[in-house]
């Protein structure tokens, strides 16, 4: 399958062909599996995938098997974006010197988890964005280091339990709010940045399509509910992802050449409690603690609305 060129407006615009094979070892109900499936449908056969280690990497490539139908590289934790930059530079040189892929658009797609992006791969990502490589970078954010057993990362949200942010008298889960990776990407002035969510598949795929079509660095930050790590029911992963948007915990953004837009508007927000109470990782939170998270989200929503210049995300419904 070639990369999708036409806009994806409805679910009927999604091709039937599966570029990403089933039979992988991702958990029952893992949203990352769905994200990969949809991503590969969009980018098609001419993408070279550079994959940082993490759940997706480990579960899709148990030797001698692979779920990928594309050229795919296993990379270390720190160097996903560095290796992606190198492949892109090599492709350019091959084209210039030998005319290889002259009439075919072959593009590098880098994929890594939140640990591999927000923390350990951050400097490589910064370099890739700063040098302007023609690479699409996708971070699937399950808000912790899941593959090694739920350790906190700088993407773990305030109050969440992980094995390294335990809940007791002294510690009440993660003490810090989530790092603003979109702000970091913005500071690099890259042409395309977006946040996406698997509960909104056409919106997500449309963002993948635009990121793939961008010439230069692009970043898509995707929320990826994780059934064991978030302590949610298997069938709830899409439901929880949707609630993240409906409560304003997650805002669906698209920033083209610095100009921001909210792609999924929410007229009336639900209280954050509805999102939190479905997840075992937030079970310990008291009403006061939930209130603090609500106030944090209120401020965040206000900030976004001011930035996009309209009330894209409305007030909490009474």
């Amino acid at each position, binding site marked *: 399958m070639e990369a999708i060129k036409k806009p994806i407006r409805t679910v009927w615009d999604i091709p039937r062909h599966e570029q990403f*094979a089933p039979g*992988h070892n991702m958990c*029952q109900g893992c949203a990352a*599996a*769905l994200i990969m499936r949809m991503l590969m449908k969009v980018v098609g056969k001419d993408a070279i995938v550079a994959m940082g280690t993490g759940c997706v990497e480990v579960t899709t490539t148990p030797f*001698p098997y692979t779920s990928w139908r594309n050229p795919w590289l296993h990379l270390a934790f720190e160097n996903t974006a560095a290796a992606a930059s190198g492949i892109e530079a090599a492709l350019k040189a091959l084209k210039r010197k030998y005319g290889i892929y002259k009439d075919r658009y072959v593009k590098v797609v880098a994929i890594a988890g939140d640990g591999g992006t927000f923390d350990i791969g951050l400097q490589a990502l910064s370099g890739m964005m700063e040098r302007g490589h023609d690479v699409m970078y996708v971070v699937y954010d399950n808000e912790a280091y899941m593959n090694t057993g739920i350790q906190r990362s700088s993407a773990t949200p305030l109050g969440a339990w992980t094995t390294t942010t335990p809940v007791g008298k002294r510690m009440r889960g993660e003490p810090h709010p989530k790092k603003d990776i979109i702000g970091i990407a913005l500071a690099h002035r890259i042409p395309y940045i977006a946040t996406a969510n698997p509960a909104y598949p056409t919106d997500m795929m449309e963002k993948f399509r635009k990121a793939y079509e961008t010439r230069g660095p692009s970043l898509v930050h995707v929320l990826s509910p994780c059934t064991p790590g978030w302590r949610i029911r298997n*069938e709830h992963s899409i439901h929880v992802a949707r609630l993240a948007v409906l409560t304003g915990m997650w805002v669906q953004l698209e920033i083209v050449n610095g100009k921001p837009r909210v792609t999924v508007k929410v007229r009336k927000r639900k209280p954050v409690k509805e999102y939190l109470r479905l997840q075992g990782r937030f079970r310990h939170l008291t009403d006061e603690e939930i209130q603090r998270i609500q106030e944090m989200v209120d401020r965040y929503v206000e900030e976004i609305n001011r930035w996009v210049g309209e009330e894209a995300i409305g007030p909490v419904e009474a």
Partner: protein
Amino acid sequence: MTESTEPQGVERYLGKKYPRTWDEVPIAGIVPWPGNTEELPKHSWRTIRPVIDQEKCIRCRMCWVYCPDSAIVEVDKEYTNKKGRTFKVSYEVNYDHCKGCGICAFECPVNAIQMVPEER
């Protein structure tokens, strides 16, 4: 030096069986069998299985869209329901790939999918 008649590059491995010993492992540990996890059944992961009621199904495609394991298959099978409405496609479950997560049943807008316990 004699010229090798063996095919070069990845082609060398394509027709071959999977390596059983270290000296059969392709150079650099490459896996020249794209998408071959498809051969690996995952049915033993399931404790419950989705069953689609073709009569109730309105062919909205949502279960197919949301399945993380590509286990809902869209087939060009015509179906006319009791109300006389004809659909061009049908949705079926590939029980080799389905892990029984229940997302399809939860997301189906008309509750056309039931999750039923697996029995031995």
